[in-house]
């Protein structure tokens, strides 16, 4: 099958056009580095099916980070290239266009963000540009779909450029200037009030208070939306469900099947957190305790992403992250990691060097609990008082900073400085935000629920054969003597490798004091990533990197656990 590749600078709307061409939904965001991996889809081109690839954004074919390497690698396999160009920034985009056309591959240019160019008083003579480049050029608006049909039609006539021949780098820059000058006119534009407000969010004096306000607002919004969904939607739903579950319980009667499906009853009642049956805990934990917060988190994250605020936050955070061996863009894996550590680990690819990526990935695994885990921490510790929840998060924040400071000193390698384009602020598109939130929520449902079911089954099975008691005995010295928590918590830590949210729930029946719960929950976050994250880290860091990271995790877990024990319980 023929291969069509979308190439372009970061944040020019490639993923949006990919979605339009293929009908495959992919994540789009208003900051460079959203797409660090390739997405594949299919479309029909003059009657025949072709494969379409959405490549990560790159400024040139000489890559400076792994995401760009991927892009340059894919180009080599392309039968046809759709070069997506930001019409509001033609001059900067043309360098990659020329480099691509010089390869002699059949190509067409999508002049995207055509609507914004109009608003900014930029006009481009499309016919003249087409003549100069020697390939079809089509203005498009990825957001609304305008121009996409014409783009598809004209892909049929895409051919290698005859006007653009291989040239030296210096010649290419001259050509970029010549072409831009010939086709583009810019109406002079004055600084608007909007520009001034936008600048306030990137200056340190005004930007820091704004950043704190934005983060606080985001946090409150997640809590408020999550709690709202629980009390208005999910709890009423489970109130309706309880009689059904009880009927099933009665029908089954005591026995193995009852153990697996309904689990233990407490005073003849289902306890949705502790019963550990597939139809009780297995449904309640993901749907009524976690899902509402996942929806809330991704809604808020999507809005933050689409406005273009994150690169500004990265700029403000740069000085701080530099001390930890990264640069400001290290905040992106943190933000994504709060949703789920898997995309967080992938997002480390926006960092340039191995050292930076190792530190970013390790710190995220140590100290950034995913939303599912956070929801459970609130659910389990919240009833004892919010200060216990705060203890967990303050500890994790300290771990992030202290481990970062240390790793920055001992990990060999370079930490290049931040170099980042700040996208313009955009009003988030309601439909785009809703779709993106839904895609991510669906991802959670598709992955979390099967794993939770598997986890619950496994726990029941391992209990039945007595393996878990054995495990408790084996780990009793560490758990009881060093961490000051019941030996049974070892089982939760084991399950945590499968799903951390489930593991947090498993701590409840152990009847620990809130202090012990704080220790156990913090351990659960630090000691090791869940299996899904582990697989990605393994791929991103390699065997040696992963071993080193795992060493850091286990050591930190033991040190922090011991320290917490000494502070909270005493010896």
């Amino acid at each position: 099958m023929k291969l069509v590749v979308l190439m372009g600078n970061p944040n020019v709307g490639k993923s949006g056009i990919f979605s339009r061409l293929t009908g495959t939904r992919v994540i789009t965001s208003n900051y460079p580095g959203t797409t660090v991996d390739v997405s594949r889809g299919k479309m029909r081109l003059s009657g025949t099916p072709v494969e379409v690839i959405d490549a990560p954004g790159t400024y040139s074919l000489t890559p400076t980070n792994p995401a760009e390497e991927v892009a340059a690698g894919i180009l080599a396999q392309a039968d046809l290239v759709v070069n997506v160009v930001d019409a509001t920034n033609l001059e900067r985009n043309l360098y990659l266009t020329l480099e691509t056309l010089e390869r002699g591959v059949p190509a067409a240019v999508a002049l995207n963000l055509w609507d914004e160019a109009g608003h900014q008083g930029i006009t481009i003579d499309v016919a003249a540009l087409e003549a100069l480049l020697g390939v079809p050029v089509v203005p498009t608006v990825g957001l609304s779909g305008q121009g996409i049909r014409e783009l598809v039609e004209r892909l049929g006539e895409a051919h290698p450029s005859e006007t653009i021949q291989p040239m030296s780098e210096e010649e290419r820059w001259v050509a970029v200037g010549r072409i831009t000058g010939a086709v583009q006119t810019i109406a002079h534009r004055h600084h608007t009030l909007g520009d001034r407000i936008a600048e306030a969010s990137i200056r340190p004096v005004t930007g820091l208070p704004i950043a704190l306000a934005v983060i606080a607002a985001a946090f409150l919004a997640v809590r408020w939306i999550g709690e709202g969904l629980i009390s208005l939607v999910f709890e009423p739903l489970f109130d309706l469900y309880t009689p059904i579950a009880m009927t099933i319980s009665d029908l089954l009667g005591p026995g193995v099947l009852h153990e697996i499906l309904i689990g233990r009853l407490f005073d003849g009642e289902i306890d949705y957190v502790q019963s550990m049956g597939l139809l009780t805990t297995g449904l309640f934990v993901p749907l009524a305790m976690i899902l509402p917060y996942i929806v809330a988190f991704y809604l808020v994250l999507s809005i933050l992403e689409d406005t273009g605020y994150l690169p500004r936050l990265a700029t403000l955070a740069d000085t701080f992250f530099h001390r930890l061996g990264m640069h400001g863009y290290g905040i992106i894996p943190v933000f994504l990691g709060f949703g789920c550590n898997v995309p967080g680990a992938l997002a480390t690819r926006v960092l340039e060097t191995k050292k930076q990526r190792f530190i970013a990935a390790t710190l995220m695994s140590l100290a950034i609990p995913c939303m599912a885990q956070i929801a459970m921490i609130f659910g389990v510790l919240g009833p004892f008082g919010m200060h216990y929840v705060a203890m967990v998060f303050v500890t994790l924040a300290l771990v992030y900073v202290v481990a970062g400071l240390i790793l920055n000193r001992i990990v060999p390698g370079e930490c290049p400085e931040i170099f980042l384009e700040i996208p313009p602020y955009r009003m988030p598109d309601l439909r785009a935000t809703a779709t993106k939130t839904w895609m991510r929520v669906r991802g959670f449902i598709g992955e979390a629920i099967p794993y939770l079911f598997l986890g619950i089954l496994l726990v029941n099975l391992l209990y039945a054969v007595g393996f878990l008691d054995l495990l408790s005995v084996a780990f009793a010295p560490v758990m009881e003597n060093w961490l000051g928590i019941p030996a049974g918590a070892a089982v939760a830590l084991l399950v945590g490798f499968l799903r951390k949210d489930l593991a947090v729930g498993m701590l409840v029946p152990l009847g620990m004091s809130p202090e012990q719960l704080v220790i156990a929950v913090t351990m659960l976050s630090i000691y090791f990533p869940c299996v899904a994250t582990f697989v990605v880290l393994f791929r991103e860091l390699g065997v040696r990197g992963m071993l080193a990271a795992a060493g850091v995790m286990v050591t930190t877990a033991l040190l922090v656990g011991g320290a917490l024990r000494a502070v909270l319980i005493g010896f």
Partner: protein
Amino acid sequence: MITMEKTLLDLESGMRGTLIRFAGTPGFVRKLRTIGIREGKTLTVVTRHPLGGPVVIEVDGREVTLGRGMAVRVIVDVAT
């Protein structure tokens, strides 16, 4: 009009200069040029973050954040 050569890092926020050359490796030069920071462009410093933090500049209506170690290798002409 008298002009003076300075590095981008010497410019206070709000000041502007015309890029005349780079003092760095070809890789460094390419990186800046491909993001739009090129010879002949007018660069305006939007802000300089304290404690060794990055510099934010505006070029062709777009803002770019770059580290101080990079800013010091960008030589601009400033009208005085």
